[in-house]
């Protein structure tokens, strides 16, 4: 595993190295943000899926995204083959955007708690974009996943970039203070 910090690449970060996302960022990731995840298929071809929510582990070292198996066959195959993942999180009302990258992504089965996180996310996201003129029905059509179809994609973020439109887009996010 690699950990990138201020341009240096460090093998297997010790636990003393802070996670690249701080508590405020973790709250942002758990919020009503639009989420998409990409990986790499054979031939260095990108694959892309829209996700329905995110949870962040207590130590902020692992993020878990929710997706529909029925919509994600190519991505699941790519993640299993390469373990590479990049996820973008964007808050529609402010355009604040963030990208996380990982190289240890794994597809999993949701725990009971995950279903609740997912369901809360769909409602929160619908409320977030309601003022922008989008109907709740449209959001549910886009994001709803049947329980038996729900899968998780978890990875350890090794790099984070701000992608809010503007001159700072693409800059690495400063790691949180220890």
């Amino acid at each position: 595993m690699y950990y990138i910090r201020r341009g240096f690449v460090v093998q297997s970060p010790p636990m003393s190295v802070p996670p690249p996302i701080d508590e405020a960022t973790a709250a942002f990731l758990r919020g009503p943000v639009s989420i998409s995840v990409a990986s790499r298929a054979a031939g260095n071809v990108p694959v892309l899926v829209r996700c329905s929510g995110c949870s962040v582990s207590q130590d902020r070292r692992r993020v878990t995204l929710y997706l529909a198996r029925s919509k994600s066959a190519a991505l699941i195959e790519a993640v299993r083959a390469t373990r590479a993942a990049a996820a973008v999180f964007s808050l529609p009302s402010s355009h604040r955007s963030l990208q996380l990258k990982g190289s240890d992504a794994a597809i999993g089965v949701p725990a009971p708690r995950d279903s609740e996180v997912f369901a809360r996310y769909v409602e929160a996201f619908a409320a977030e974009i309601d003022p922008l003129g989008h109907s709740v029905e449209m959001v549910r059509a886009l994001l709803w996943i049947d329980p038996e179809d729900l899968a998780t994609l978890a990875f350890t973020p090794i790099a984070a970039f701000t992608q809010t439109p503007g001159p700072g887009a693409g800059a690495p996010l400063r790691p949180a203070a220890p």
Partner: protein
Amino acid sequence: MIALDAIRDCLEGVIPATVATCAADGTPNVSQVSQVHYVDGAHVALSFQFFNKTRENILANPRAAAAVIDPVTGAQYLLALEYLRTETEGPLFERMKAKLAGIASHTGMAGVFRLRGADVYRVLELERVPGRERPGTLRRNLLAALRACSERLSRCTDLGRLLDELLACLDEEFGIRHAMLLVPDGAGTRLYTVASRGYPASGVGSEIPLGCGVIGVAARERTPIRISHMTLDYAYGQAMRERAAAEGLADKLETMIPLPGLADSRSQLAVPVAAEGRLLGVLYVESAQEMRFSYDDEDALVALATQTGMVARLLQEAAEGQDEAPAAARAAPPGGAPLTIRHYAADGSVFIGDDYLIKGVAGAIFCKLLRDYAREQRTDFTNRELRLDPSIRLPDVSDNLEARLILLSRRLAERCEFLRIEKTGRGRLRLAVARPFKLVEVPA
């Protein structure tokens, strides 16, 4: 594969699209993109606004994936793409720049979103992501409206009627209530309004510079320009005021006739009218409703504009073909106090009393008619003799004289009850004078 034009509702920028790429070393990257623009049945263009990882990746590895969403149904589509090139100017660039200006102001990002380039991609695959989308809205079939308009336009026998019929068609068949038609002046640096519909004042004779607002950009780039949200970037008022201030008196004259237009215009579409590779005019429509005009509306109006251009050319040729000497009609001199009509050599402007009427070539035509009338009470004229008259100085042989005559006759109808220009046949016209006048030539 799903036809790309079947998902154009997803390509209006309502919900931001997502694009994924891979670096040369295989690291994936994913980001949002403001605009995935429909180019043609096999290509899309993505808005390139910032130098970022996406940009770096596609230059190294041209494969990309994009996800777009139907804002009504929630249906999602995935596009497998291959990057081809970036355009930094020209029709596609200007179409996307205008559209982005609307998206930016709608989403509070005016001043932040700036188009650096249109990244053109080939669409390799297009698939629908399985899901339970809600039903779409039922919309009228624009082909039926287009057909009805096309039949109506084909029956027009003179240019004035054709222009009015086009605007009536848009109103009655498409429900587009506010529209105008502008034609370029001889030098091609300005456009002037010859017909409008749906405004309190017709604005006939009002002018805009080439390149100004959606109309001016559509004329300059010869491409449709469509905006779906209110944006100051393409507002006319500001640009016109700045220009008038910068250029002084001559240009103040041009702003004496206000351009008709909705104060709360939220959707705008300008479509060039061309024939034989020449710009004949611009058809402009607008609405106070956001997202009023879709890709389909744009297609329909381009088809109508094309037909209008062809019919206009045929009518012009037919009008110029008339070579008979006009009947030697002599008018009985009218009674009443004479009107003073001034023609200023400095800028070619014509004033009736203190009221500004017209300037330029149309003004020169008007003065020729008045002089001939004053000299020999002559009232009947042909387009052909006007074209050949050295005092009028038509800019070139293919100049749309008929459009200038329409402008002149409409300005007279609006501004003067004693002088009228009537069509008496194809390529022929009559000056009707109901009061004596005195033409004063004011030297420069």
